[in-house]
Structures are given as structure tokens and as C-alpha cells.
């Protein structure tokens, strides 16, 4: 019998697997896709601070472009510049990064299998039914981690109450483009506007050598598709006319709806599968890897005690909410307020705010400054109060 079966060999699953394997537990990861990290569903940005916090010594072959800031455009094209003066993050090659994460877990002793889809759970979540290249088998384990991304049915099958509410997901679509004229190869470009990307934004994340991820996230309950809005943005911008599309990506991005309870008997959920994503920018890499560390700490203790009951695993809820959930819920509130803003409000804010303010907001701090500014806007009293 295995100690832990992890469903999904993305960054969250691999992060947890490495920690558990290092403590000597017998861990196996199943990845339903035939290649780990492919196709990506991600803009591929990761802040240097996240690499430091999470102890990720990311090798050079995963890092495509150093980033030193961002250009944020209001609907009227007014620009707010975030300039950090030095490298504060990287655009990654997820295809390489995810395999590197998997390699770390494997070196620590975890066993990984791609093209192995977990179809079902064994009774009491004590193992899984997995289909490896067409052949089904039962694998027994003391507990199971659900890290299979937003589309994974395993989390609900395990008994975790997950919302399927449309309003807390973004619909995402992206082209990787080459031969693209960039405004500044070291800066992320973000475009806001209700006509451009309702409730979301268009991003251009440079990947070096005039390459970039050009993508969009919009509210999940819009009438038009994410593709419609992104294509319109590209058509209306001359600088894309000479660029070519070398990859097409799509996916759903959780942007809130955090779960109070991410556990079940002998089971816990992490990563996108548990909505652990920053609701304002939709970044899930940092949150998923962090959650992998928290989850493995809790599981390690439970396994050592020989008690992986739901009651024992609920410590994970408390730890995650204390470390990440409270901050992310504040960011979710900000997202709720932003979706009430008109283009005029966004233009106004772009005049009043500095790049540093925007950075604070994405981390869930300094929100009272935004609240105070919104108090001055007609009809925004109620929204402003949410932030004060």
C-alpha cells in the first residue's frame, strides 16, 4: 500500500510530492496528460519573491525572460508604470518548469506516471482506480491528494463541497505569438476596460526574442467568448499585424469562491482544484506550490500519527486560511469592487494611482487608499465601503 496517491502532476501536486517523499513517505503521482506541463494554461509569469519564499532554485532553461515591471493601461490608454529598477520576476517556459518540478519530486523518491488518468476513488478515499494507457488498476493508499486542476472531478467525488458557480471563474484564452513588437521586453503589459475584457484584462507577457503570451481572462458568465474579445483586441492593434501564432491555449481560471473546507476522509484538495489562485491577476503557480507545502506538512503529521481522518486533516484548512486564505479573500473583495467600475472610473484611478499602489493591491494590502478614492466617485459609495 502506498502512503499517498496524488492526482495531477502539476506544480501543486509535485510540490507536495517532493516534501512528502523527502520525509520518507511512499508517494505516487498520476498525470492524465501524456506530457507534464503541456499544453500550458498559464501566462507563465512567476515573481522572484515567490521563487525565494518557496525555495525554488529554478534552472536557467526554464526561465525565458527577466521582468522588471509592468505597464498597465486604462481604457483611455492612460498608462501606469510599475518599474522596479531590477529583475522582480521571470516569464517561464512551463513545459520545462513543470518537468523540472516533477524531476525534483522524483529525485526525492516520488514515483510519477504521465498518461495515467485517475478515474475513481476507492471506498473512504483509500486509493484510486487509475487507467494507465488504457489499462485499469486499483492502487491502494492511506490517503489521496486532489491536485488535478479545475476540471478534475475527483475533488467532488471525494466528498469536498465545491462550488460550480460561474461567476467565480474566468474564461481564459491565449496565443503564444512570435515576431511581435514589444513595448518593453522586460515589462508585462496589462490592458483594462469593460469593452476590452469585461471584469478581466488582456495581458502581454514577453518571453524573450520578440515572443510573448498574449492572453485574456473574462468573467465566466459573459455572452461573448474570451476568444472573441482577444481576437478583437489583436485586430485593433497594428503591432500584431506582423506577428504569428505558434500556440493556442485556453482554460478556466478560478478567481475566488475559496473553499472553507478542502478536506474529506483521507483526502485533501490543493491547487486550482481548490481554487487556490489569486483572484485579481489569476496567477495560480505561487499559490499552488505554497499549498503543496502546507498540505504535505499536515499530511505528514497525520500519517505519522496513523490518523488521516477528516477531523485530523482539517488542520490544513486552518493553516491555509491563516497563511493565504485571509489575504486572498481581501483580494477577492477587490475583484468584486473592480467589476463594478465603469471605464471612466478606471481612467480616473489611472490618474490617481502609482505603480506601487497597484502592486500593493494585488497582494491584498493598501486597499483603503482605493476605497477613499472611490468614495469620490458617483455611485461608488457602497463599493468603496467594502474596501475601507
Amino acid at each position: 500500500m502506498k502512503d499517498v496517491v496524488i492526482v495531477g502532476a502539476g506544480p501543486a501536486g509535485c510540490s507536495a510530492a517532493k516534501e512528502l517523499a523527502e520525509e520518507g513517505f511512499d508517494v505516487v503521482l498520476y498525470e492524465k496528460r501524456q506530457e507534464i506541463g503541456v499544453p500550458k494554461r498559464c501566462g507563465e509569469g512567476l515573481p522572484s519573491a515567490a521563487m525565494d519564499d518557496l525555495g525554488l532554485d529554478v534552472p536557467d532553461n526554464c526561465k525565458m525572460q527577466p521582468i522588471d515591471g509592468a505597464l498597465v493601461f486604462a481604457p483611455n490608454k492612460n498608462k501606469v508604470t510599475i518599474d522596479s529598477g531590477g529583475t522582480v520576476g521571470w516569464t517561464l517556459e512551463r513545459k520545462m518548469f513543470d518537468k523540472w518540478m516533477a524531476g525534483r519530486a522524483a529525485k526525492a523518491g516520488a514515483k510519477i506516471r504521465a498518461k495515467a488518468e485517475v478515474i475513481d476513488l476507492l471506498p473512504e478515499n483509500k486509493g484510486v482506480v487509475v487507467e494507465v494507457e488504457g489499462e485499469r488498476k486499483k492502487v491502494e493508499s492511506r490517503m489521496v491528494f486532489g491536485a488535478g486542476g479545475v476540471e478534475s472531478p475527483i475533488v467532488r467525488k471525494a466528498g469536498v463541497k465545491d462550488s460550480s458557480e460561474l461567476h467565480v471563474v474566468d474564461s481564459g484564452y491565449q496565443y503564444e505569438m512570435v515576431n511581435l513588437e514589444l513595448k518593453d521586453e522586460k515589462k508585462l503589459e496589462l490592458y483594462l476596460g469593460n469593452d476590452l475584457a469585461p471584469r478581466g484584462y488582456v495581458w502581454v507577457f514577453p518571453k524573450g526574442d520578440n515572443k510573448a503570451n498574449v492572453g485574456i481572462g473574462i468573467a465566466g458568465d459573459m455572452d461573448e467568448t474570451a476568444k472573441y474579445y482577444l481576437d478583437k483586441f489583436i485586430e485593433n492593434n497594428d503591432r500584431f499585424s506582423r506577428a504569428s501564432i505558434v500556440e493556442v491555449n485556453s482554460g478556466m481560471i478560478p478567481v475566488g469562491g475559496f473553499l472553507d473546507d478542502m478536506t474529506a476522509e483521507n483526502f485533501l484538495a490543493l491547487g486550482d482544484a481548490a481554487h487556490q489562485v489569486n483572484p485579481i491577476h489569476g496567477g495560480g503557480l505561487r499559490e499552488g506550490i505554497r499549498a503543496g507545502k502546507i498540505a504535505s506538512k499536515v499530511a505528514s503529521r497525520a500519517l505519522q500519527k496513523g490518523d488521516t481522518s477528516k477531523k485530523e486533516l482539517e488542520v490544513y484548512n486552518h493553516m491555509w486560511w491563516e497563511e493565504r486564505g485571509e489575504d486572498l479573500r481581501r483580494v477577492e473583495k477587490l475583484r468584486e469592487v473592480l467589476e463594478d467600475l465603469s471605464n471612466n472610473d478606471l481612467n480616473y484611478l489611472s490618474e490617481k494611482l502609482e505603480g506601487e499602489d497597484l502592486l500593493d493591491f494585488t497582494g491584498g494590502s493598501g486597499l483603503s487608499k482605493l476605497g477613499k478614492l472611490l468614495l469620490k466617485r458617483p455611485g461608488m459609495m457602497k463599493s468603496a465601503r467594502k474596501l475601507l
Partner: protein
Amino acid sequence: MTWKIQRKKCLRCGGCVGVCPVDALILTENGVVVDEEKCIDCGNCEKVCPVGAISVEGDDE
């Protein structure tokens, strides 16, 4: 209602599967399959699909 999934448009990202409240959608190697028995016609999948690959049979598009 009968749902139509256009395989040529579908990128197999599974976004629709994630928002199905009754797990009526299954992501297979050949694309997404709807279990009509389970489907409650909520339309979540149609709305969230980033490429507009899901529609009601008979609707133009």
C-alpha cells in the same frame, strides 16, 4: 435540449467540465462528451467555453 460540441473548435481545456454542477461532462481524448441523462440544461458550459465550441443543437453558429 441537445448540446452540440464542435470538436474542431474544442481545445480540450476542460473548462466546461469544471463548471458542470452535475458532472455530466467528460473530457476524453476525442473531446468533451455530454451525458444527456445527467445534464440539467443549465448552460454553464456554453457560457464558459473560451472558444464557443458548445451550443444548443439547432441554434445557428
